[in-house]
């Protein structure tokens, strides 16, 4: 296993985790519909449906961060320390999510159910948009510089420097927000489809969800196509890394479009992903009782996201372009961990199929019996 091979392998794993994370954001999508639900019974249904999966989304986010830290520490160091406010706001939205499920219906929760439902709503909307913004910077860049020599500057020993707005400039960049909004409506569409699959005894709610899936799916498609158009016409950086880890950077018009062509398998994966999402959405909305749409849109989402990560990182592309100093951009070559660490971590990654297998087994076992209002009234652990 060469270093180059390991870097490619770990970018693949990062893209897989990213794909799973975006799929699992259906939990946030469901939460974002909470305040619009007309009755307490329906809000309870939404929360208890989503609440049995929230830990998986949360854990995937943590593992995504941990894997990035382990495999591409320069990204972790540069992005988290630089886009400080972006990541802090993401964190805030996830802190309030974690406790809200457990506390919302418990006696003595001090602030009342509505407060916790509002927290879940905030996490559902803000979490999705800001994660979309964070991923968008992989394509449209960020305002930072990297200078390793700063390590020896006692007055300011930090190697990565960022614009003084520290992440707010990224949040209010309309290009980033396009993807953020697309992710929100994708999550809402998937949240509706998941509930159609998981809640059985309320035909009225089923039809409401169907409408929600169609409307949110439609908005998602518009924003996603907008994002794709921007992506394919964007100028990216083609980079090669020197032995001293400095970069040769060439600005390349239509870089990502070229990547989709050159990495034809990434383009094909995106196409299959988009078709699967559209199929799952449309069949769900125009059939009377079909509930398997979430699986098609889920797989489609996963495929589309991993293909986007591939064109961001492969084919000598800077996966974190610097808008202030192109030579400071991050690529999977100059931002990665050492060969030893990547190799050690690769051995650990052998457990991933086992992890996925037991998650799938548990998911199937738990969802075999669909959620009903009656179960909520009798269960010993209700959110």
């Amino acid at each position, binding site marked *: 296993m060469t270093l180059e091979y390991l870097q490619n392998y770990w970018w693949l794993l990062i893209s897989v985790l990213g794909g799973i994370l975006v799929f699992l954001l259906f939990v946030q999508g469901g939460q974002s519909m909470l305040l619009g639900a007309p009755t307490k019974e329906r809000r309870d249904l939404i929360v208890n449906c989503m609440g049995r999966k929230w830990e998986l989304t949360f854990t995937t986010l943590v593992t995504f961060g941990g894997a990035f830290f382990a495999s591409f520490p320069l990204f972790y160091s540069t992005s988290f320390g630089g886009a400080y406010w972006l990541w802090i706001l993401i964190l805030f939205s996830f802190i309030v999510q974690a406790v809200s499920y457990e506390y919302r219906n418990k006696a*003595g929760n001090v602030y009342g159910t509505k407060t916790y439902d509002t927290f879940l709503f905030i996490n559902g909307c803000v979490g999705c948009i800001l994660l979309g913004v964070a991923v968008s910077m992989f394509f449209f860049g960020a305002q930072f510089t990297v200078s390793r020599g700063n390590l020896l500057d006692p007055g300011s020993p930090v190697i990565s420097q960022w614009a003084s707005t520290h992440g707010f400039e990224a949040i209010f960049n309309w290009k980033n927000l396009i993807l953020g909004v697309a992710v929100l409506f994708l999550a809402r569409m998937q949240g509706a489809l998941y509930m159609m699959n998981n809640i059985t005894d309320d035909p009225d709610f089923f039809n409401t969800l169907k409408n929600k899936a169609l409307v949110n799916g439609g908005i998602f498609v518009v924003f996603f196509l907008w994002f794709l158009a921007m992506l394919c016409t964007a100028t990216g950086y083609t980079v090669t890394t020197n032995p001293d880890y400095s970069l040769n950077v060439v600005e390349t018009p239509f870089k990502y479009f070229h990547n989709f062509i050159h990495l034809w398998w990434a383009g094909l994966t995106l196409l299959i992903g988009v078709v699967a999402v559209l199929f799952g959405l449309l069949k769900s909305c125009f059939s009377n009782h079909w509930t398997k749409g979430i699986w098609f849109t889920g797989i489609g989402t996963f495929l589309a996201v991993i293909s986007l990560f591939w064109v961001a990182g492969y084919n000598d592309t800077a996966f974190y372009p610097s808008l202030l100093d192109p030579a400071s951009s991050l690529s999977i070559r100059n931002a990665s961990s050492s060969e030893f660490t990547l190799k050690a971590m690769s051995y650990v990654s052998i457990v991933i199929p086992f992890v996925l297998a037991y998650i799938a087994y548990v998911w199937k076992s738990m969802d075999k019996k669909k959620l009903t209002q009656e179960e909520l009234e009798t269960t010993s652990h209700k959110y």
Partner: protein
Amino acid sequence: MDDLMTVVDWSRWQFALTAIYHWLFVPLTLGLSLIVAVMESLYLKTKSEKWLAATKFWMTLFGINFAIGVATGIILEFEFGTNWSNYSWFVGDIFGAPLAIEGLVAFFMEATFVAVMFFGWGKVSPRFHLASTWLTWLGASISALWILVANAWMQYPVGMEFDPAQMRNVMDNFWALFSGIAVNKYMHAVFSGWALSGVFVIGVSCWLLMKKRNEAFAVRSIKVGGWIGLIGLLLTMWTGDGSAVEVTKHQPMKLAAMEGLYHGSTSQSIVAAGIVNPNKTWDNDEDEYIFDIALPYGLSILAKHDPSAFVPGIADIVNGIDVNENGDTINTVSYAERIRLGKLSHEALRAYDLARTNHDEAAMAKAAADLKEYYPYFGYGYFDSVDEAIPPVGVTFYSFRVMVILGSYFLLFFIVALFAVYRKDWLQRHKWLQWIAIVSVPFMWMCSEAGWVVAEVGRQPWTVQDLLPTKAAISEISSASVITTFWLFAVIFTVILVAEVSIMLRQINKNSQKNLEIDNAH
């Protein structure tokens, strides 16, 4: 950065705040999950509904606590990036691996099976449910393993070498991460969680006895919690002793600060209780303590398992004086010399960088050789005076005593609790014992937190021992940003904590009014 030290101080406060809040919930997760798993196993073995009722009672409290532990945990991981970005680059090649493994191996296990634990009743077989409960406990324990391995590595950095071309450390031995410090630290932390949960279970159960609700249930719970707590506490003490020996070897300055000891000696006594003199410094002649009760030979035994051994004090370490096993005085590297060598290592790294830019192979080789020689003192190169390299003595000294004194008290607590609970109606009749058990609960948290204060304040000023001080580990952010986020976190954590405590108390009150005495055992 024009306000470097303000950013450093507030970043430290923010991380300390997050860690202290996180550790309020984690030990209860580690221990209560075990207690619940044992109770559910007894249910499956005896088929008695009384154990099922007990399992569900404690599982509810586990769930309330679990969520907030998860919430505060994610912040800690991300704060390494947001507030300690230089650290993340400097040692990310080593430190990132345990965090990723933690997520992959432990978090998913915990997250997947905790859902079965809460919602799987009647949906999966009883055996699968029990397995899920044990796997939740295992996931939590494995998670602790990796984060504590990572923490221990910061205190005793091994298994890596410095790569001057990238200006960072790279791993060269994965298994070196499992050092003596790591093993002791892991066991010490996890077993202390068992002890804390034992105290919690006994305290809550005694409240039920006082209210005369479900007394047989309370007695059963005290037996399970008491034994797990006692075993946990004994193992905590054993591994604490191991930790002291490891600290003596690798962080002698921390040990000296824990003891408030400036001038060491052979057959060194230990201060059982005392007040350190706040005016004492390593280079003045003031007394070390305003008041102290010393136990002869105590520190020599604790530090080196030898009553006649020499234990150096702060001034000895600063001046580079130690005594070997034969009783001969030997010179170690003084702190002034370490600072000089540290600055030489910085110069060597600058020279290497310049030579690399000029493609001067010979100069690169020479600079690399110099750097290798001086690198063990790299972190000292950031200091201008010896005082910067000494940890806060008072906080470390008092925290250590709080931990040890309360830890010893809880040994007595468990012995008395178990003695009382196995004598017919003894605990039920002695209300004062019930009161003591209830009042003791918050002190166990104090004991547990004090342990972390010793570990983390005692290692200052280092983020990575000898290599990276906190002031070189930070992110390039404004002090206003960090101060704002500190207060945001402080408010939100407190808001959540108030809710958690309130819900816990209400759940205990509400659930204890149900009949938990059903017994259908055959």
